[in-house]
């Protein structure tokens, strides 16, 4: 931060309000204004004036689906966070799911040395299906401990299932020999699904929309919780890969293209994949899905199906 006099700060207030100065100057002027009885109110008034300019923009159409999607994600994130703050909160009442169940067929791609070392240690999740290694990797920085798993229900369905499970637990008489194992099983499922919701919520979550190259149609999302290093990918409307082929997920950094596994969408084109993998917070540049030979490839070779910039 640089030192600014009152006169210098005052002369820059309009530019600071319009964000037309460097970050350094802005921070210095704001620091001065926070303590200055003259500059503080003046800056607030200037910012108010600047924001009014935003009303000049012609209204842009926003599709109902897009608008509703943002709203539901926001409310769900807020509800999840509120409940994590209040552990004894009552049972949540999430809205109805807008995507039905989808099951992915997943294959891990083996353990490699090299570029992945700079990406840090990864850890698997216990609900994952065993991975089968593939052959001939040269640089793929995929660690075997990344356990991409098929999740048997999509996220929005998870929330309603939670409600149902909690109700069933409440109804169960856990003192009877028959009911106790049922309750334990349900509790385990709830814990698993709670973990999924937590992975997709919070201030450290980055969402990468996945779009087709030609039409820019959004057909999925990759959610990365940079605090917990949980990754969840959802796709919808994807065609089945050609015979003998599969889809492969790539995490693209400046130095590597990291295979994150292969998958096959369900008959409705839906997929949900979950992984745990440590990546530096600023390393991700893009996420891409390519069509590759069954079992996966060591580097992207097939056509890009969908992708998104981080």
């Amino acid at each position: 931060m640089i030192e600014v006099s009152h006169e210098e700060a005052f002369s820059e207030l309009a530019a600071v309000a319009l964000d037309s100065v460097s970050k350094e100057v802005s921070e210095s002027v704001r620091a001065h204004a926070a303590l200055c009885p003259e500059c503080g109110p003046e800056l607030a008034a200037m910012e108010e004036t600047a924001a009014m300019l935003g009303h000049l923009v012609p209204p842009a159409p926003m599709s109902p689906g897009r608008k509703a999607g943002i709203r539901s994600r926001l409310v769900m994130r807020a509800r999840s966070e509120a409940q994590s703050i209040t552990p004894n909160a009552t049972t949540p009442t999430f809205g109805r799911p807008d995507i039905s169940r989808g099951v992915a067929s997943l294959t891990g791609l083996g353990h490699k040395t090299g570029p992945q070392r700079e990406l840090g240690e990864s850890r698997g999740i216990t609900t994952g299906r065993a991975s089968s290694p593939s052959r001939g990797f040269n640089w793929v920085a995929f660690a075997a401990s990344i356990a991409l798993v098929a999740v048997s229900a999509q996220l929005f369905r998870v929330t309603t299932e939670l409600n149902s499970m909690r109700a069933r637990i409440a109804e169960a008489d856990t003192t009877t020999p028959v009911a106790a194992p049922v309750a334990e099983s349900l509790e385990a499922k709830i814990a698993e699904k709670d973990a999924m919701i937590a992975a997709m919520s919070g201030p450290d979550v980055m969402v990468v929309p996945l779009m087709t190259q030609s039409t820019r149609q959004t057909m999925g999302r990759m959610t990365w919780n940079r605090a917990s290093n949980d990754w969840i990918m959802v796709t919808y409307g994807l065609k089945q890969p050609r015979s003998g082929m599969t889809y492969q997920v790539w995490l693209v950094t400046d130095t590597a293209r990291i295979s994150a596994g292969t998958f096959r969408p369900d008959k409705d084109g839906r997929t949900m994949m979950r992984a745990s993998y440590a990546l530096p917070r600023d390393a991700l540049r893009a996420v891409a899905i390519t069509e590759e030979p069954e079992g996966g490839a060591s580097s992207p070779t097939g056509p890009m199906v969908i992708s998104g910039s981080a």
Partner: protein
Amino acid sequence: MIRRMAEADETALGALYDQWSRSLYSLVVHLLKDADEAEDVVEETFWQAWRKASTYEPSKGAVSTWLLTIGRRKALDRLRAQKRRREDSVKSERIFADIPSSEPDPSRSAEGSDVREQVRAAIRELPDEQREVLELGYFSGLSQTEIADATGQPLGTVKTRMRLAMQKLREPLSMHRGVTE
């Protein structure tokens, strides 16, 4: 509404979103020229509002001001990170140019249209050179130095024009502070 958000009432966040998402989206998609990126910025803006609700001070501005300021800043951060601002594109989008005296807008509420028209009226009163500096600063996200380069004017001139423009707009637009709440 903001107070309820600060008390972790997520229905208040939904209500805030219902009220202001369209205005925010319009601004952000205008800046980014990409609906999907705009969607992300809108979501992150409301999420920041949720997380920072307890720090919101009504005395420092209307809720809409707060949201538009956050959203615009996030959009500009993206533009700057991607170095997507180009002079040619900057010059092709002139929000202030040819502002008509009246433009019926059935897609907006009467109240919203009134605010928009009042802002337009205030802009109309500015000299062209001040409008240009304001437009390049607000809608194209250019720094004063970049504006000086783009317009061929000395930096000091750009600073003066920007300051004068904002001072002239301040009084007429301050009347609408309550309207945008």
